């Protein structure tokens, strides 16, 4: 079987051309990435699917598999005729699974240094969260602004809780009992909304696609 993984200068291409149907592709992708052992986290991946046509949902499924190993889907390569399902139903949510909470609190102001907010369920903030400020939520956290302080989602132990922000640039992120901080020295400037969630036991930040 000639399914290959090529590393093309920081970008990875997974060649799945020999495979004939979608279930097989999913299985093989899962098997291949099972060997990767976490060292590829953050890599951009292009998947070559050869002759097969995939619909939007199936592409979403591939993306989910990649993300569960901490990889980002950059694009698909295909030799087949272009699929006609491109602009299909807007029902496919790329936000992935988000846990449901009954209670959501909306805060319409900036959270400044030294201010702390606690919510039993979800917390939505229309404003910035500055360094030194803290938001703690039993559920998910959504910041419609810049998150530069500390955010703790799923404080009662929900590992599926997510933290998303219009600009995600926190001093520290906590989800359930995981604690992460940005790496030292390098400043990463991202100009788009992002979401942080736990995948494969690690807090991973993805672009927020809506």
């Amino acid at each position: 079987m000639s399914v290959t993984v090529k590393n093309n200068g920081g970008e990875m291409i997974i060649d799945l051309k020999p495979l004939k149907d979608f279930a097989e592709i999913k299985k093989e992708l899962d098997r291949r990435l099972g060997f990767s052992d976490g060292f590829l986290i953050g890599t951009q991946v292009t998947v070559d699917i050869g002759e097969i046509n995939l619909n939007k949902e199936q592409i979403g499924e591939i993306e989910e598999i990649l993300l569960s190993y901490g990889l980002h889907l950059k694009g698909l390569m295909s030799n087949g005729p272009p699929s006609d399902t491109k602009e299909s139903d807007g029902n496919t949510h790329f936000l992935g699974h988000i846990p449901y909470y009954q209670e959501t609190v909306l805060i319409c102001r900036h959270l400044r240094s030294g201010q702390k907010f606690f919510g039993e369920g979800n917390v939505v903030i229309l404003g910035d969260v500055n360094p030194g400020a803290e938001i703690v939520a039993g559920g998910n956290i959504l910041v419609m602004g810049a998150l530069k302080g500390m955010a703790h989602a799923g404080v009662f132990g929900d590992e599926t809780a997510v933290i998303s922000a219009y600009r995600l640039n926190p001093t520290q992120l906590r989800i359930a009992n995981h604690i992460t901080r940005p790496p030292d020295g390098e400043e990463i400037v991202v100009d788009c909304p992002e979401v942080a969630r736990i995948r494969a036991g690690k807090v991973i930040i993805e672009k927020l696609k809506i």
Partner: protein
Amino acid sequence: MKGRALVITSGKGGVGKTTTTANLGTALAMMGKKIVLVDSDIGLRNLDVVMGLENRIVFDIVDVVNGNCKLKQALIKDKRFEGLFLLPAAQTKDKTAVTPHQMKNLVNELRKDFDFVLVDCPAGIEQGFKNAISGADHAIVVATPEVSSVRDADRIIGLLEAAGLNGPQLLVNRLRGKMVKKGDMMNIEDIVDILSIDLLGVVPEDESIVVSTNRGEPVVIETTSRAGAAYRRIARRITGEEVPILSLDESNNFVDRFKKILKLAR
């Protein structure tokens, strides 16, 4: 092992207590000492930012005194130097979250494991100040060459003596040699005269402080910085070495020295 506990205080705000704490701590750690920096400015913490350790804070001083965590868990290890630790203040509480008695116990606990415990005192003379000085066995008073700063330093020295902390030492910060020469700034003798305490050292005004503070790297690491060199000398003095106080002369480059020689020759 029983370490010394020093409190760095000033009364007036913005004279460089936090910068001094960070730099003296780092300089002492560079000399191989085991150091812990304690930020007692609860509610307005800065020491973690100046040290570049803000994003590592999980537990803080209030968690320790309330028993939410062990002391060791709250200590943040510095990313550059072995043997340098920070006990951060809480940001979402205020000064009343800790009592002087608790602070004293905490400092005595830290003393067992470290050569020096440096306590960064908040501005003012209220509870934060009382917390910071309890447990310390020595005080460093930071003052800038300004009348208001010296006045506040005088008040602080009085309060320190009333609290039984005798023999505080003076650190004059942000001195501009050129202005002193022209007579536009108080000179060291004037300040020591007014305060009549021992002079520990003089730190010149230096723009590299601003840069390093913003970057979260103490200036003592930079070999080219004049303020950094001054802090390194003060650190050596703290450990008991005899180091002469640096001259005020700002002009230490080759051309100026050459001019001086010419003047002498004339």
